[in-house]
């Protein structure tokens, strides 16, 4: 076995120098030569360079001033979040702009925005794994981390918006002395299950995927504390064939469980709106349209994070233009589905001939929130069309700007859906306006701070790219068909 492996290794190295050598068509380095696509990992890497490069960021690289500054600033924003939430608990949700008729505003907008962002991580780690898309390998780890932190930010909003968070356990169905049960027909109830399942599975998936790398860090750590801490987290991983076998089974099973969650979580979120009979919310297209929107915003966020991270940490070899281009294509496709949703929604509102339905798109286009509606169309429908051009997909700066615009657009989309549908519903005498207060903004910006602070910690203390999975896509890891016979 060993001999064969060594032999293959030499062979592969040999071929590897002469790029485009025949006989290695399947490996990611060579497959691209003919098609003109950039590789998924830059040429020249071996098992040890990959391990060194990724683990050094955590173990040996000096923590830069930039890291302290970035973490410090985002931590300040996190403190602002704590302050805002504390004040909210003292005073109640009257400190927000919500009031009749707009009883739901920033908190639900932010909740949907954050939970949508999480979806890209799950899609990359679960669905692309099952579809055998090897390019996912270098981005799945931090995309999953992003998912986890985004879900944490999302989960915060429903928990605090009840106004009496110490009674949040009432959301769960349990036999109690009051004989009161949650309303099982309400999608808000389903949300509790959907989001808590999502958080649990995402955390498990991420952690289990980390175990072999945590063991690598344990073994390479120079400090006693490091090796003890990473050792505890690695849960006794020794890398035996037995361990790997168990690991592969567990990981595939979790991928199978996580796959339906990509669709189900945002479907339930969309039902929060569409089950209601409010014009603007009650549309049957909502489930697939929300799911597409979630993936759209999620990939925008992955790009927003990946582009600066790869530049700062010099990871261009691992997160190559191929990854950025593929993500841009996913954004283009999901963005077009979202635009399809806008179009069909507006057409059907008119076609329904119901005067309240007809009024919704009219009010969105010409009412008090019209500038935001047009801005949303500009961000989500117009700007991303530039991704049709290869030159744009090849430019990291352009991609970064587009990704940020899409993030803004997707936030605006949820704001428009929530607020414009509520503020003018059936009776003109009951119409009203909504404007966010300082506390609405400070809570929202605070969650961004929390998200970024957690990411800073993650990048500093855990391997942000899966070391062992990166090794599997090297040419060395490929076993030649003819030698496998032995």
């Amino acid at each position: 076995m060993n001999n064969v492996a060594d032999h293959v290794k030499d062979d592969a190295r040999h071929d590897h120098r002469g790029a485009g050598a025949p006989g290695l068509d399947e490996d990611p380095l060579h497959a691209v030569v003919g098609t003109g696509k950039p590789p998924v990992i830059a040429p020249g890497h071996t098992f040890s360079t990959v391990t060194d490069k990724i683990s050094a960021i955590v173990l040996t690289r000096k923590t830069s001033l930039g890291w302290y500054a970035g973490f410090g600033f985002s931590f300040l924003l996190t403190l602002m979040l704590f302050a805002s939430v504390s004040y909210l608990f003292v005073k109640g949700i009257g400190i927000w702009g919500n009031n009749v008729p707009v009883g739901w505003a920033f908190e639900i907008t932010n909740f949907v925005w954050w939970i949508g962002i999480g979806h890209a991580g799950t899609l990359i780690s679960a669905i692309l794994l099952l579809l055998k898309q090897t390019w996912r390998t270098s981005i799945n780890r931090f995309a999953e981390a992003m998912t986890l932190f985004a879900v944490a930010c999302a989960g915060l909003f429903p928990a605090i918006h009840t106004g009496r968070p110490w009674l949040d356990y009432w959301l769960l169905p349990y036999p109690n002395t009051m004989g009161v049960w949650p309303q099982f027909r309400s999608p808000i109830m389903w949300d509790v299950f959907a989001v808590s399942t999502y958080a649990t599975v995402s955390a498990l998936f991420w952690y289990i995927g980390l175990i072999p790398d945590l063991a690598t860090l344990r073994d390479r750590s120079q400090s006693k504390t490091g090796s003890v801490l990473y050792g505890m987290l690695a849960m006794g991983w020794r890398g035996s064939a037995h361990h790997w076998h168990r690991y592969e089974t567990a990981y595939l099973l979790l991928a199978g469980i996580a796959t339906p969650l990509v669709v189900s979580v945002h479907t339930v979120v969309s039902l929060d709106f569409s089950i209601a009979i409010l014009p603007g919310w009650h549309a049957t297209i909502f489930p697939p349209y929300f799911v597409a929107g979630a993936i759209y915003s999620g990939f925008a966020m992955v790009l927003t994070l990946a582009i600066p991270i790869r530049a700062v940490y010099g990871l261009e070899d691992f997160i190559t233009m191929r990854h950025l281009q593929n993500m841009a294509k996913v954004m283009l496709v999901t963005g077009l589905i979202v635009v399809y949703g806008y179009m069909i929604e507006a057409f059907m509102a008119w076609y329904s001939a119901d005067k309240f339905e007809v009024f919704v798109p009219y009010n969105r286009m010409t009412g008090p929130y019209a500038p935001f509606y047009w801005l949303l169309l500009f961000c989500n429908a117009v700007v991303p069309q530039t991704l049709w051009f290869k030159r744009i997909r090849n430019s990291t700066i352009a991609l970064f700007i587009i990704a940020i615009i899409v993030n803004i657009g997707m936030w605006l989309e949820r704001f428009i859906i929530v607020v414009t549908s509520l503020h003018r519903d059936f009776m003109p005498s009951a119409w009203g306006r909504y404007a966010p207060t300082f506390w609405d903004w400070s809570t929202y910006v605070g969650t961004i701070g929390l998200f970024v602070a957690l990411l800073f910690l993650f990048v500093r203390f855990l391997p942000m790219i899966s070391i062992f999975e990166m090794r599997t896509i090297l040419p060395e890891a490929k076993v030649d068909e003819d030698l496998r016979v032995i």
Partner: protein
Amino acid sequence: MSPYRETADVAIPELAGLQRRFLLIGAAGAVVSLLGAFLNLTQFLQSYLMAYMLCLGVTLGSLALGMVHQLSGGAWGVVLRRPIGAATRVLPVMTLLFLPIALGMHRLYSWTNADLIAHDELLQHKHLYLNTPFFLVRAAIYFLVWNTITYFLNAWSLEQDRNPDPRIARRMQHLSAGGLLGYGLMITFASFDWLMSLEPHWFSTMYGVLIMGGQGLSAMAFLIATVVWLSRRPPLDRIVATSHFHDLGNLMLAFVMLWAYFSFSQYLIIWAGNLPLEIGWYLHRSHTSWRLVAVGLIVFHFAVPFVLLLSRAVKREPSLIVKVAAWILIVRVVDLFWLIAPEFHQTGISVSWLDVVLPLTLGSIWLGCFVWQLRGRPILPVHDPEFEETLGPIIERGAPPRPSHG
């Protein structure tokens, strides 16, 4: 290149006889159906619409799958490319076969009735969209777009057979990207026009997506059945491997789940809302004896194929997966029947003999044309950019023996 070429050019002798037989059955069916048209023209048109939407679904679904494959790549699509091409080239025939619907639209669509509009405010509002000339103009646009995409994709595919220039593949990719947009938009509005407007008051934003999912499923099932048939004869018997069926089975499973997801979401939202304008559509279909069909669809269109396709053994065994595929094509007809017929028989199930004869007739004519088109070109696209990578080794070595079913 030459061993590939030789393999691809092998003629399949059974096809000629098959084409003749299908066309003969189709011709006989056409005579019987015409008789039905004289006896009861309205019923004829209703059954015709159902049969037509099934055949159109396979045609356009194949077109869409072909374009998705152009963009995504993958070994599953390389073996399907020629059956897909042949299926899309039936589109001109399908365009002609739309004529009975266009000519008989006054019997199918109540919104064409001026008396009804005069007494209905909602229909007056919709008249801007739902009126005869605009309906016909739209249909012309849909067919123009679909036929244009089909024409160029097939012409370039033929050109690619002669000329291995990679630029042709790139051109096809570019067209496919725009073509998918065109297909999606056109079929959405076509489904509103031809199916949803049967009940002109009802509306659902999901409807176009639901019909698209159904078309994808019909096409996938049909293509799997075709590939199984082809894989039993030279030259594909040495080429189509177990893993291809596995991938195709997974895709079919994905479409079964998509169909169920779209259908259930639409139902749940309308059921929970329970609004007068929306719920009527479901009341006809679930609170009369049509409920039997509705429940049947949940069990036989979703649950049974879903469970079967979860099994690895079923997906890897051609003789089993072809049965699932054939079953899905049958339940697709039932689904279309449930979408269309309750509109005309709102009190309960009513099946006419034309509901059986017309799908068989149109299906046979469609199959005859399909086989004719399939014969016209080599069975493998040897210059597909992925051909060498995915099928080359198999052709050189022969397919690994398929495990016998145990």
